[in-house]
C-alpha cells in the first residue's frame, strides 16, 4: 500500500483520534480547574460581599423562573398521569406519581436546567467580558486572585443555594399538581396532601437535595470555567456563553442519570 493511500484511508481514524484526545484534554482541564476552585473555597482570603452577591444572583433572583417552571410542570404532570392512569383505572395514583416524579426527577432537573440557562450564561458572559476588557488582569495587578474573588464565591453559592431552590421547586411543583388535581380532576384536598406526604420517603428528599447541590456546582463551574477561558472580543464572549450553557445542560443531565443510578438502582 502506498504511503499516500495509507494516509487517505486512515484520515477518518486520525480525525476521530484527534476529537477523542481533544475531549479527554478538555475533561482534564475542567477537572483540574474544579479542584483548584474547590481548594480556594476553603482557603483564605474569603470575599463575603462577593459570596452574598452570588447568593442573591443564583438563589433569590432565580426564584420566579424556578417557581413558574415547577408550577406549570407539576400541573401538566398531574393532567398526564390522570389521562394515562384512566386507561387502566389507576387515576387515584396522581398524588403519588406527581410527588415522586417531581421530587426525584423533574424538580432537580428542571431547576438545574433553569439555573444553567439563567445563571451559567450570566456568569460566563460577565467573566468573559471581564477577561476581554482586561478586568481579570487588573484584579491580578491589584493582588487579588481571580479564582478566589470570582470563582470560589459563585461555586460555593451554587453548592449551597441550588439545593434550597430545588426544595422550593419541589414544593411548588407538587402544589401545581395539587391545584390541577383538586381544581379540575375531582381530588379532595386533604387526601391529596395526605397521599403525597405518606408516599414520599426521606431518601427521595435527600436525593433531590443532593442532585440540587451537584447541579448547582456544575452550573456555576461551567459558567466560571468558560468565562475565564473566553476568546477575544464580542465573538469570544458569545462563544464562551454558548459553550458554558451547552456544557452545563449536558453535564447536568448526565449527572442526573448517574445520581439516579446511585440512589435508586436496585
Amino acid at each position: 500500500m502506498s504511503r499516500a493511500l495509507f494516509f487517505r484511508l486512515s484520515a477518518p481514524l486520525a480525525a476521530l483520534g484527534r476529537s477523542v484526545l481533544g475531549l479527554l484534554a478538555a475533561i482534564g482541564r475542567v477537572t483540574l480547574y474544579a479542584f483548584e476552585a474547590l481548594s480556594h473555597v476553603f482557603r483564605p482570603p474569603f470575599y463575603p460581599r462577593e459570596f452574598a452577591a452570588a447568593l442573591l444572583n443564583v438563589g433569590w433572583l432565580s426564584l420566579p423562573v424556578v417557581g413558574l417552571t415547577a408550577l406549570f410542570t407539576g400541573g401538566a404532570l398531574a393532567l398526564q398521569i390522570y389521562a394515562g392512569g384512566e386507561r387502566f383505572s389507576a387515576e387515584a395514583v396522581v398524588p403519588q406519581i406527581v410527588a415522586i416524579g417531581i421530587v426525584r426527577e423533574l424538580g432537580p432537573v428542571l431547576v438545574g436546567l433553569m439555573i444553567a440557562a439563567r445563571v451559567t450564561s450570566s456568569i460566563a458572559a460577565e467573566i468573559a467580558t471581564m477577561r476581554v476588557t482586561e478586568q481579570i488582569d487588573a484584579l491580578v495587578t491589584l493582588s487579588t486572585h481571580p479564582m478566589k474573588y470570582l470563582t470560589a464565591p459563585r461555586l460555593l453559592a451554587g453548592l449551597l443555594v441550588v439545593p434550597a431552590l430545588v426544595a422550593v421547586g419541589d414544593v411548588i411543583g407538587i402544589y401545581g399538581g395539587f391545584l390541577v388535581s383538586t381544581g379540575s380532576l375531582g381530588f379532595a384536598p386533604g387526601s391529596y396532601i395526605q397521599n403525597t406526604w405518606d408516599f414520599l420517603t426521606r431518601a427521595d428528599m435527600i436525593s433531590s437535595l443532593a442532585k440540587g447541590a451537584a447541579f448547582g456546582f456544575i452550573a456555576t463551574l461551567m459558567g466560571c470555567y468558560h468565562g475565564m477561558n473566553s476568546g477575544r472580543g464580542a465573538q469570544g464572549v458569545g462563544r464562551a456563553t454558548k459553550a458554558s450553557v451547552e456544557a452545563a445542560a449536558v453535564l447536568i443531565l448526565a449527572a442526573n442519570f448517574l445520581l439516579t443510578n446511585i440512589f435508586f438502582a436496585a
Partner: protein
Amino acid sequence: MIELVGVHKGFGAKQVLRGVDLSINRGESMVVIGGSGTGKSVLLKCILGLMEPDSGQILLDGQDVREAERDAFLARFGMLFQGGALFDSLPVWQNVAFRLLRGRLKRPREEAREIAVEKLRRVGLGPEVADLLPAELSGGMQKRVGLARAIAAEPEIIFFDEPTTGLDPIMAGVINELIREIVTEMGATAMTITHDMTSVRAIADKVAMLHAGKIRWSGPVGEMDASGDPYLDQFIHGRAEGPIETLR
C-alpha cells in the same frame, strides 16, 4: 531597578519577543515605543507575571521576579490599563480603593473611601463622581479613575499601557501632564508603552524602541531626534516610507 535579560515570548509559531534586553533605573520614567503588534503589551504583562516568558530573565532589584513572593511583589506595582479595566459592577470609589478594601493593605471602609476621594481629587475629579458606576463616565474620566486606582496604594512602580489611546488631543494632553506630575511627586519608577509621540515627549526620561521583538534603540528622550537610527526616525516622524514595512 527593573532589568530584562534576553526575554523571549512566542504564541504558537509566532515569536513576539526575540530577546529583549532593557533596564529601568529607580525613579526613572521609561517609555517603550513601537508599532501595533510589536509586543509592547506582552512585554509589560511578562514583567507583571500576567504572562510567562519562554526564556530570559526579569529582575526586580536584582531578584528574579518568578522567585519573589507574589503578593509582596504585586503590592509594589500600580497599573493603568489601556481601556481603564475598571470593574463595572463596583462604584468609582470602590474601584479606586479596591486594594485598600481587601488583602494585606486593608483599611477601615471609611478611611479607604476618604483616600479614594482624595486620589480622585488628585486626578481632577470631584467627590460627586465617587458613587457613580464606571459605565456612567466618559472615556477621559474612566482614564482618570484608572489613574487614581493605579496610585491609590502609593506604589513604587507604575505601568501605563497606552494611556492616551482613544482620547481627544486636549484630554490626552491633560492625562500626559497628570502622569508626569504624579510620577515626579511620588518619586515612582514609571514604564509607559505607547505609540503616541506627544505622550513620549511629555512623559519620558528615557525612550526604548521595540521592533521585530528586540529593543532597536534606547536612550534619553533628548537624544531621540538625533539618534541617526532610520527605524526610529521613521517611527517618530510617522513616515510611510522607510525600513519599517507597512501594509497598504
